[in-house]
């Protein structure tokens, strides 16, 4: 079946074939749509100061309030998306919320991969009781109901470190690193016995160097696949935390936080549709974009991996 949406790879590049993951990304219509969505959001995030000039440049994430009335106001010339409870401007919140979403998604994914990957690699490389001990810890952390545990940790941390955003991020990382630990451990175990590793050992390469230069680069692919699928999930879960009242503080430009106001207006939601639709659509599209990319990665790079995340 011919693909109507394909980017033509210039001839000069065809002589130097692109890495598999780039090729996967550019020839799949699903991933192209995902890429476009993410790029649009990235542009919005970059252009935020222009699209929605902050009232206070030193604190741009604080959503401006037009008065203190509780009742949300419908879209108007002054407020293109309307205002939510407390007269927070929805347009401003959605635009600057894009930056928050990127920040949270990339930070949480980066940290979980780093921590999980390190633990997994060490666990697999040293084996023996180190492996047993670390795997027990992984099992216990995995036995936690994820959302409840993240909720509890975020609740406790927020008043301690006086930063709701960071508490949410730490809570998410604390209960998500285990996925990558298991993943990397599996990969390292598989690669550990390969010839080039044994050769490096025979030549006298120190352990950490073998790990870094031989083992890890070959484990990268499955990592990329899972990580790209997870960015969307982490943004979703963080939004859920904010929605419940943790994560971002009230008035902070975060989509989940904006949506949390809707809880107070449920019987009248038909009238106040804009307090749900605008931030909700932003959140949905953002996560969709990343999931489309991740899906395309998975289909192309590792057809043996089936849908494993329960979302």
């Amino acid at each position, binding site marked *: 079946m011919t693909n109507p949406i394909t980017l033509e790879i210039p001839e000069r590049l065809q002589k130097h074939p692109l890495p598999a993951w780039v090729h996967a990304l550019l020839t799949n219509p699903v991933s192209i749509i995902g890429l476009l969505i993410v790029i649009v959001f990235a542009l919005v995030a970059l252009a935020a100061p222009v699209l929605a000039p902050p009232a206070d440049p030193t604190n741009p994430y604080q959503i401006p309030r037009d008065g203190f009335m509780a009742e949300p106001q419908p879209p108007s010339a002054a407020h293109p998306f309307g205002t939510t409870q407390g007269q927070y401007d929805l347009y401003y919140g959605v635009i600057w919320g894009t930056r928050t979403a990127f920040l949270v998604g990339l930070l949480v994914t980066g940290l979980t991969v780093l921590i999980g990957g390190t633990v997994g690699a060490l666990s697999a490389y040293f084996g023996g009781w180190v492996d047993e001990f670390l795997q027990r810890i992984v099992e216990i952390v995995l036995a936690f*109901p994820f959302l*409840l545990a993240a909720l509890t940790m975020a609740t406790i*941390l927020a008043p301690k470190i006086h930063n709701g955003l960071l508490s949410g991020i730490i809570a998410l990382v604390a209960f998500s690193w285990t996925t990558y630990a298991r993943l990397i451990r599996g990969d390292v175990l598989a690669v550990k016995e390969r010839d080039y590793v044994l050769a490096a050992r025979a030549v006298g390469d120190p352990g950490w160097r073998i790990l870094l230069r031989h083992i890890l680069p070959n484990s990268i692919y499955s990592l990329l696949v899972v990580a790209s699928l997870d960015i969307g999930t982490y943004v979703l879960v963080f939004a859920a935390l904010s929605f419940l009242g943790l994560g971002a503080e009230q008035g902070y430009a975060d989509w989940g936080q904006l949506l949390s106001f809707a809880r107070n207006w449920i019987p009248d939601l*038909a009238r106040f549709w804009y307090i749900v639709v605008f931030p*909700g659509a932003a959140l949905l599209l953002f996560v969709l974009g990343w999931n489309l990319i991740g899906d395309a990665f998975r289909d192309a790079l590792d057809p043996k991996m089936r849908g494993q995340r329960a*979302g």
Partner: protein
Amino acid sequence: MTRFIIRRLLILPLILLGLSILIFGLLQLLDPAERAALYVSSPPKNPRALQDIIEKYGLDQPIYAQYGDWLGRVLHGDLGWSKTAQMPVVQALLEYFPATLELALWSFIPIIVIGVWLGIQAAVHHDQWIDHLARIFSIVGYSFPTFVFALLMLMIFYAALQWFPPGRLSDWATAIVYSDAFHRFTGMNTVDSLLNGRLDIFLDALRHLLLPALTLAYINWALILRVTRSSMLDVIRQDYITVARAKGLSEKQVMNRHARPNAMIPVATLGGLLLVSLLNGVVITETVFNYHGMGWWAANAALNFDAISILGITLIDGGLLVLANLVVDVAYAFLDPRIRLA
């Protein structure tokens, strides 16, 4: 096989122990004054009163002493008093667990039935419009934030149309259910109302269950659909399917007798993952719909620092997860002879 099961069952208490220690430790990050807030309904009038409370409940004792205390009481069947639920934790568990179970069951069955059917259809009609539609439906479902979907449902079906209200039961039904005329057998309103012969309460309970169940189902269809589809696609390409066709079996026979049973094996693993997803999703769903179950209780407990409740809930949920994983592993080995004989 039996040894495997026994070993896993023996590890269960150890994991629960580890879980409880972790959560207990986490909650110790709050200082005694904050934890004292659990035991009183209003702030104490003077510092002396606060100190009294701290001493009375042993909140400034070393961690291991407090933990030992709590563990001792647990082993005697006393899980403490839940401030969020305003009743003993054990009683709250008996009240809220059936609620969540009811919601999970009413969601689970449509999820599996429709999800599997759609997945098979998508695989059998690979690359045709049904397949594309199913995949789009699947990925949008997977990306949809649970609480946004829930709010949209409420916006359309409650605020605008007034068809399906939030909560578990209407006020008139609640009055009847908690009266002496009504015998509570399982704690699940749909089951109990039928057992009591009250069709009106059954319908009322269903009316309240529909939106939350739909929310949970929609988010999870994506997962089942995707796994069934890829598993089915895998199986269809196998040699034994070609042989079956060459033998002259009709396409229907090939699908029903050979392809589908084998494709179902990974779906068993899905059961475990689905449980995890339901346990997590239920927190948001129950909160938005004000459905008083484990998820609702958990969210409120976490937000109110209700340490005792959180400990109790974590134990139950954690235990459930471990058990579910065990059941899934056993089922997997049971369904796939290749694993059993390995």
